[in-house]
């Protein structure tokens, strides 16, 4: 009998911010190699769920648990969760003035490498490594010399998130509306990059409003969130139905 725990397991998760309840009992299991999509109306709790998994300090855990490979991570700081292999691709990547992109990327990469017992990369080794990965998102090296997300277009910010995902080699990547603000060409580049990073040992959660991303990165499971919990789960067909009928008719979707 296979006793291996799910890669990520969320049980009865209730959270609040400033006294306001946002998540009302989320349950979710994700195994190695799976791709899950989470859809739902604005304000249904999708982004909150992603931030809570990544350890955002503003959210209070009321009850429930989040386990990575069977171990609870709810007491861990965001950096410790990242080191263990959780990656959050931000819906709105943060601009950090004056911090060079490459300096940040190297610090982040080395933090993860050091946790998984790999040697840290010096400036030259990292230059080589990151240049290879840049091909994934079809950007040139000038992208690295700029300040972190400062003055980046929406598409550049999202590509930078995917570059980070590639560099950090996470076990589970939560991509929060990575497709929003992308033109068709950028969506294609980003989707292809995600598909290349996908493997049998890592898993992906795609948070999205639209079917078009799911045409490119095909999910094994689709979940619908409403009022802070998952109200429906199934395969890709749900997303197709949703695109046709909208959230109004969610109950009719089988």
């Amino acid at each position, binding site marked *: 009998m296979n006793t291996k725990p799910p890669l990520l397991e969320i049980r009865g998760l209730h959270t609040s911010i400033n006294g306001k309840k946002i998540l009302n009992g989320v349950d979710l299991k994700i195994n190695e190699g799976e791709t899950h999509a989470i859809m739902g109306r604005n304000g249904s709790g999708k982004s909150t769920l992603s931030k809570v998994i990544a*350890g955002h300090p503003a959210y209070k855990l009321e009850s429930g648990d989040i386990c990575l490979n069977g171990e609870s991570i709810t007491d861990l700081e965001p*950096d410790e969760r990242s080191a263990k292999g959780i990656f959050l691709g931000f819906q709105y990547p943060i601009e950090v003035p004056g911090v060079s992109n490459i300096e940040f990327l190297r610090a982040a990469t080395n933090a993860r490498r050091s946790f998984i017992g790999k040697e840290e990369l010096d400036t030259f080794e990292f230059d080589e490594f990151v240049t290879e990965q840049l091909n994934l998102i079809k950007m040139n090296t000038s992208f690295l010399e700029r300040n972190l997300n400062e003055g980046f277009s929406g598409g550049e910010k999202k590509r930078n998130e995917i570059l980070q995902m590639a560099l950090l080699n996470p076990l589970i990547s939560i991509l929060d509306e990575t497709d929003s603000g992308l033109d068709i060409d950028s969506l294609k580049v980003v989707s292809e990059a995600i598909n290349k990073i996908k493997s049998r040992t890592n898993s992906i959660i795609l948070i999205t409003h639209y079917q078009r991303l799911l045409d490119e990165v095909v999910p094994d499971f689709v979940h619908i969130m409403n009022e802070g919990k998952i109200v429906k789960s199934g395969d890709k067909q749900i997303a197709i139905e949703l695109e046709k009928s909208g959230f109004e008719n969610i109950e009719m979707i089988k």
Partner: protein
Amino acid sequence: MSKLLSNWLENLPKAEGYQKKIRNSGYNYLKTIGLPNKSSEDWQSTDIRKLEEILSLPLNLSFESTRSFKMPSISKGSYRVILDSNIDKIHSDDLPEGISLLTQDEIINFLNSDISNQTRNNITSAINEASTNKIFALKISESNSTPIEIIIKDSIEELTTTRLLFIIENNAKLDLLEIIKSSSKSANSHLSEIYLSSHSSVNHGIIAVGSEEGSLFSRQSILQEPESSYSLSYLQEGWGISRIEPYIVQLKGHASTNLKGLQVANNEAKLSTYTFVRFNGPGGNLEQLNKAIAFDSSTSIFNGIIEVPQIAQQTKASQLSKNLLISEKAEIYTKPELRIIADDVKCTHGATVSQLEESELFYLQSRGLSLNEASSLIMKGYTKEIIDFLPVNANRWESISKYLKK
């Protein structure tokens, strides 16, 4: 006049001939006006007792530093001067092309001119003028292409006073970096006067890093003719008490001024920047950004006066003071002060005091950086906007390179 000040003035080394002429204005100012008190607007946030303590220290008459500190190698192609007794041995022939010493007559003529007098009459320069026997004075001409680095050291339990005068001729350019460093219980009074002729430009940097027991009172008196361009970037860090006072006059307007300051206040330091920019004619331009980070129980003060009189129509001036308050015990005081009489001008100002952005910290932490690493990376980025502008390869100096280290 306080007894302390009258004793100090009485015990100053005798000034003869040339010295008398360069020291008179400061001496007379102190004799007439005396030391500031709590009602003096510019000194309300400064502990006057510190000023008195400084005046109780003996003067470093030998002009020697009792301390040596590690200096990085000279930036390629630049000229370094250490302001100690050896400056007497410098002759114009030793200087790079386009740089020459001002004669005593030239110095006296300039210091007694109406133009030069526009930046006088204040306590910081008066203390310096009254007590400094030597001025390191240079003329920079159009043929100059050599950056200059000036080193100012301290002397234990003494007051070291140093003074510079630079005349920048028409069309001349100069990159100038001043390093003011103290490593002991000591005090420095430093005055830099720069006159920019038409179509000249100066890119001026100051790195003022002192020990917790060090005191610094420094003033930059800058006079700009039309079509000149002056940029000043400065870093203040350490010190027990420190004042940097850039005082800029655009003599007939139509000049460009850019000020970028950073103060990093640690422990119980009281760091302050008092800037004054006056447009004495139309069409002048000013861009100013002052940043501060206050840690521990430190105090950081910024006071920025911009004067735009009736004659200074079509002035464009922007001033921004951005401050990071890291500790609950630290204090930040920031006061933009725009005195605008002219009506056809564009002047903006703003001031913010904030803590580190939670969203930035979370973003970096979510990529594996610890809270400390994330904070220090954000702060390093915050400082970069200023220190990137320091001229003469300033990152050779450890005080700067630590902000830039990858």
